C-alpha cells in the first residue's frame, strides 16, 4: 500500500477511536439531558472520579484484580457517585429552571475537582493495563489493543442503550420524564426514581469511559474539564436529547479533529471542532438530528 493510503487509514482509525472516546462521554451526558433536561457540567468530573477509582483499584496493595473486574468495579463506583450526587444536589432542585441546575452542576464540578486536588495532588497518575502496551501491527498500521477494546465497547454500549431506551419499561419512562413530569406522576411513573437511574447509568458510562481510556492517558483532577465541553458540543450538535444524534456527532467531532490535526495543524484543532459546532448551529439551530414539535 502506498504510504499516503496507510497514513490516511491511520488517521481515520485515530478519528474513530477519538470519536469512540467522545461518544462514551457524550452518551451519558445526552441521556441526562434527554431525561432531566439537565446540562451536567460535572459529567467530565465524574469521568475523573472514574479515573482515580481505576488508579486506586490498580494499585490496591497486595491484590491484583483482573482488568475486566476492575472495569466493572469502576463503573459501579462512578454509578454510585452519580447516585449520591443526584440524591444530595440534583434531586431537591429537580423542578427548578435548567439554568439553576446547570449552575449547581458547576458547583459539583468545582467541588469534585478540588477534592481530587486535595486528595491526590495535581500529579498525574498512571493507570496502564496489559492491553495499553500491546500493539497490533497490520500493514504498517499500529494500534494498541486498548483502543480496539474501546471501539468495540462503544458500539456494544450504544446498541445496548438503544435497546434499553426503546424496549424496556424504564427506558420508555425515561423518555416520558423528559417530556412532561407532572403527567408522569399521573400515570404512575416514579420520576425521582427514573432520575436516579438515569444519573446512575450516565455516571456509570462516564466511569466506563474512564476505565477504558485512562490507561492510554493519565489521570488528573482537570482531566474532564475540556472533555465535558466537547461532549456538550456533541450533545447539541446531535440535537438536544437525541441520544443517537449525539452519538454520531461525537464520532463526527472525533474524525474532524483527527483529520484536521493529522493534515493541517494540531494547535487549531479545537478551534476547528468548536468552530464547526458553532457553524452547524447557525445553519441548523435544532442540531443535526433535532426535530421540533409544536409551535
Amino acid at each position, binding site marked *: 500500500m502506498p504510504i499516503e493510503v496507510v497514513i490516511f487509514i491511520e488517521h481515520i482509525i485515530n478519528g474513530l477511536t477519538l470519536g469512540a472516546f467522545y461518544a462514551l462521554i457524550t452518551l451519558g451526558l445526552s441521556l441526562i439531558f434527554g431525561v432531566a433536561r439537565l446540562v451536567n457540567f460535572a459529567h467530565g468530573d465524574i469521568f475523573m472520579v472514574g479515573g482515580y477509582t481505576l488508579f486506586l483499584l490498580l494499585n490496591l496493595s497486595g491484590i491484583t484484580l483482573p482488568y475486566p473486574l476492575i472495569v466493572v468495579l469502576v463503573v459501579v463506583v462512578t454509578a454510585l457517585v452519580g447516585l449520591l450526587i443526584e440524591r444530595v444536589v440534583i434531586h431537591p432542585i429537580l423542578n427548578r429552571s435548567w439554568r439553576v441546575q446547570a449552575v449547581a452542576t458547576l458547583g459539583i464540578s468545582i467541588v469534585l475537582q478540588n477534592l481530587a486536588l486535595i486528595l491526590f495532588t495535581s500529579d498525574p497518575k498512571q493507570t496502564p493495563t496489559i492491553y495499553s502496551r500491546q500493539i497490533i501491527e497490520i500493514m504498517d498500521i499500529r494500534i494498541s489493543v486498548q483502543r480496539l477494546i474501546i471501539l468495540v465497547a462503544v458500539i456494544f454500549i450504544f446498541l445496548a442503550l438503544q435497546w434499553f431506551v426503546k424496549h424496556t419499561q424504564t427506558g420508555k419512562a425515561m423518555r416520558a420524564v423528559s417530556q412532561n413530569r407532572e403527567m408522569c406522576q399521573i400515570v404512575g411513573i416514579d420520576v425521582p426514581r427514573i432520575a436516579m437511574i438515569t444519573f446512575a447509568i450516565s455516571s456509570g458510562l462516564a466511569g466506563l469511559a474512564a476505565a477504558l481510556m485512562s490507561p492510554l492517558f493519565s489521570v*488528573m483532577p482537570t482531566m474532564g474539564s475540556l472533555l465535558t465541553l466537547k461532549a456538550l458540543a456533541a450533545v447539541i450538535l446531535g440535537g438536544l436529547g437525541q441520544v443517537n444524534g449525539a452519538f454520531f456527532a461525537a464520532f463526527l467531532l472525533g474524525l474532524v479533529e483527527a483529520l484536521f490535526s493529522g493534515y493541517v495543524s494540531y494547535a487549531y484543532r479545537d478551534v476547528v471542532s468548536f468552530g464547526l459546532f458553532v457553524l452547524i448551529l447557525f445553519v441548523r439551530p435544532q442540531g443535526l438530528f433535532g426535530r421540533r414539535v409544536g409551535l
Partner: protein
Amino acid sequence: QDAEPIKIGLYAPMTGPIAFLGEGFQYGATLAIEDLGGEIEGHPLELVVVDNKCNPTDAVNAVRQLIEIEQVHVILGGGCSSATVAAQPIIAEGGVPAVSATSTSPSIYEGMGVGGNIWQFRVNPDDLIMAYAFAERIAEGTERIALVAENTDFGRGALASYIPLLQEHGVEIVSEDYFDLGTADYRSALTRIRASRPDALLVVMTERDGSTFMRQLREVGIDATIYSRGTLTSPLFLEYTADDPTISEGVLEFSFWAAGLDPEHDQRFLERFGTPNSPHRGMSYYTTRYVIAEAIRNAILNHGEATPETIRQELKALSIDTPIGHIEFDDHNQAYPFGTIQTIEDGQPVFVGTIELRPIPRGDEAEAEATEVADEEAGS
C-alpha cells in the same frame, strides 16, 4: 529564638490546570527551609504561599498581598510568564527582591537589572541561553527535525529560541506542533510526524503531558532520536512511566537541572514527599536553599538585618558554588548555572555531563526597546 522571623513569599499557580507547578515550588521551598533547620542566624524562616492562578489579575493581587499584607522579605516564583510579567511593575514599585527559579521566557531578561527592574532576579538560564548552547549539538547528525512543544510560555518560548538557531545550522524543520496542556490524544499529530520521517524530535514538555505524549509516540512507532528540552528524564517522569521505563529510553535531555546532579538530595526529596524530584521542584529547592537563604544570611551578617533592600544588595553581590553550578548575577540580574545533559539507559537516568552556559549576544533592537520601556517605568 525571639529574633524576628523572615518571610519568604511564594506566588505560583496553586489551583487550576497547572497547579502542579505551584505544588512543586512549594515542595522545593519547604524542603529547603527544613534543610536549613527552619532558621537563618537565629531568625525563623516562614514560607507564605499565595495562588496566582497563572493569570495577570491574580498575580498582581498575589504579589501585592505578599508585599503589603504579609510584608515578606523576598519573593520566589511566578511560575507562569503571564503572572511573572504582570507582577513586574508591582515588584519594582514594592521594592522587594523577587527570584525566579524556572521561568525561561527571554522577554523577562530585558526588563531585569539594568533593564530597569532592579528587584527581579533569575537563577535559571532562559531559552535563548540554552538554545545557544544546545542547538549546535542537536544539529550534529540531524538533518530533519520535528518540533513538539506545550502550548505555553515554556514551550512557545523554547521553540522560538531554537528554531532560528537550528535553521542556522542547516537543520530542516519538518513540523512544528503545540499542544494545549492536558491534551489527551496526540495520535493524529504523531501519525503525521511519522509520515514526515524526521530523524530527530525536539520535545519541550513537562512531565505530565510528556509522559502521555511519549507513550503514544511509542505506540505509533516513531524511532527517531528524541531530544528533550523539558523534563523527559527526570525521576518524576520516570515515576509517571514506571510501568514501562523504556518509554524514554535514549532520550537526550538538555536542561539546567538533572537528577544526577545531586542524587542524595533526590533521594531525600522522594522520602520527604513521597513523590520524586523534578526540574521545577529541584530548582525551587536550590534557589531557596542556596540563593535566597545565602543572600539572607549575608544580609544579616553584613548589614545587621535582613530587609528587602539588604537582601537585594546581597543577591546582587552573591557568588556561590551550588550543586547546580556557580551562581552569580550579571548586570541583568541573570545567573548562569550549569547546562546539563542527561539520558535514560535501561530505564535509569544517566547523568551525561554539564555544559557551561554563558551570556549570549542579544538583539540590539530588543535591547533598546526594553530600555525605552524601562525608562518610562522608572520615570513615573
